């Protein structure tokens, strides 16, 4: 029995969850130079799904997530592994950061690098791992 019979929670979750997901993305992207990152972002994102589980039940949360949590874990670790291995292409050591700068209008540029990819991997892994545990316990 995981669904709480609370109309307030059910309504609030519909509004809060998207905001939490947006906030988690913000944290993820902010993470490289300032506090934040894939780990905290992932935790926030999994909170969104956790709230859904409590408010609307396990099946709804699973349907909204679309992929199974273990798949997310595997995808995340694969992404991290790939981001680390990209350094081999540049004849550098495993996990060495590689950066490319994409110029935008005027002086502003966007710097993209393998650490960001790694962070996305962490993000997915954390969501996957947390939700695997949560869904497992929610079944009982």
């Amino acid at each position: 029995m995981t669904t709480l019979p609370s109309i307030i929670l059910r309504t609030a979750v519909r509004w809060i969850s998207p905001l939490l997901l947006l906030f988690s993305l913000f944290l993820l992207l902010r993470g490289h130079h300032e506090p934040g990152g894939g780990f905290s972002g992932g935790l926030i994102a999994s909170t969104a799904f956790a709230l859904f589980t409590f408010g609307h039940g396990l099946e709804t949360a699973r349907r909204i997530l679309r992929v199974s949590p273990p798949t997310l874990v595997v995808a995340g670790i694969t992404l991290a592994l790939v981001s680390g291995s990209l350094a081999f292409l540049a004849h550098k050591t495993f996990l060495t950061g590689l950066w490319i700068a994409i110029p935008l209008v005027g002086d502003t540029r966007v710097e993209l690098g393998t650490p960001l990819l790694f962070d996305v991997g962490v993000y997915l892994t954390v969501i996957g791992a947390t939700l695997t545990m949560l869904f497992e316990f929610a079944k009982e």
Partner: protein
Amino acid sequence: MELLVTLPLLIPLALSLALFAARRHRRASRIIAIAGATILLTVAAALLVVTHDGIQVVAIGEWPAPYGIVLVADLFSAAILLVCALVSWATIVYATGWMDAERERTGFYPLVFALLLGVNGAFLTGDLFNLYVWFEVMLMASFVLLVLGTEKGQVEGGIKYVSLNLLASTFFLSATGILYGIAGTLNFAHLSSVLAYVDPQILNIVAVLLGIAFGIKAAVFPLFFWLPASYHTPPVPVSALFAGLLTKVGVYALIRVFTLLFVHDPGWTHTLLLFCAALTMLTGVLGALAQHDVRRILSFHIVSQIGYMIFGLALYTPLGLASSVFYLIHHIVVKTNLFLLSGLVERTFGTGSLDRLGGLFRTHAWLGVLFLVPAFSLAGVPPLSGFLAKLLVIRAGLAAQAYLATAVAVLVGLFTLLSMLKIWNEAFWKARPDHSMILHDTGRFPARLVVPIVVLASVTILLGIAGEPLLALSSRAAAQLLDPAAYQAAVLGTVTVQAINGGV
């Protein structure tokens, strides 16, 4: 070169992911697993060859030591890595012929490679905290492997294994914290150069804390109780893998820290280890004599054999350490093989209980012969690898004038022979008891179950007859272990080592 040091980590990780993705396809999983294990074995062999030229160091992400994370491969770690890759290859091949469909589908192969990732990481890391992380990776994988399949004994064994290993991890973590507080670094090379300036009294405390942590993982007396309670519960390939690898990682860690870090007061720390070693040998073998189940007897023998490895370390002489390295390598091969063989016995009779076994030599003569190779090797009968290993340990003990402990070692060798003969007499020689039933009477097993055993048995014989290269390797590895300055120079290179006195 750098790639070669990283590959033993990348290959198991990639394989684990691939096998998880392919877990529903049994055939594909098996092919990937065997191919992956073969590649890992090749890479480990190449790494050992490269390490002959000197200690290999890789700074991950090109952050220099002591600030970044380093992977270090010296002769000792490369040799253990190779032999672990060999037994895991054998176990994986064996498992493809053993595991039931349910366990294969629920992620047996990905977990095995996750375990190998942790094991290889522990061998290669050059940093105390990373060692902790790799230990946890290994433990996580082993927890799940241990209880995969839901048998009653597995759950019980799981509780004992999990709680005691968690306790060990906390000890490890506490020791790491205190060490960071007093030394301000966790890099092995940096620590070993800094610890000379630290108060030896505090160091003794940290040494004992780490000794307890690794002692639980290595199943040293008086911390071994979880091992015989849990190792016989999972399926045979899992038992074999655990027997070959897990406790040996604990021994590796003990050898690493007690040759590189805590050498300030060998009269105290290493004497303590000597006591533990002698008692470990004795209690392990006495426990084995009381048992009536093949895999339980073998589990207790793991404990007793760990004593020999710690004995060599406790002597802290070149010969002693060489004997430890030799013993470690010999033991990993032999013990895994014995567990794999016990699986064939259990499969024939549907039980491993000695009361219900008998007459195996009449129906499966070749199995008896195959059993005698690792069994006699374990007991130290020439010309097998165990003879050389025991001879080295005893010679080292006599040379270091540790007569009492050496006498224990000799005595334990006799008891080991006794308990191997017990298995032989009960399972192979005596007439089959009336109430036993043979499940598998044709005398033929699939090749995937037999080939790994034959390969490991031939390695045992080879190491016994032509032990010279391994002996030379062990001596060189021991010399390297006794020379922390070389390790420091290899890892820290030109970085000036600043002595940090007291706290941060």
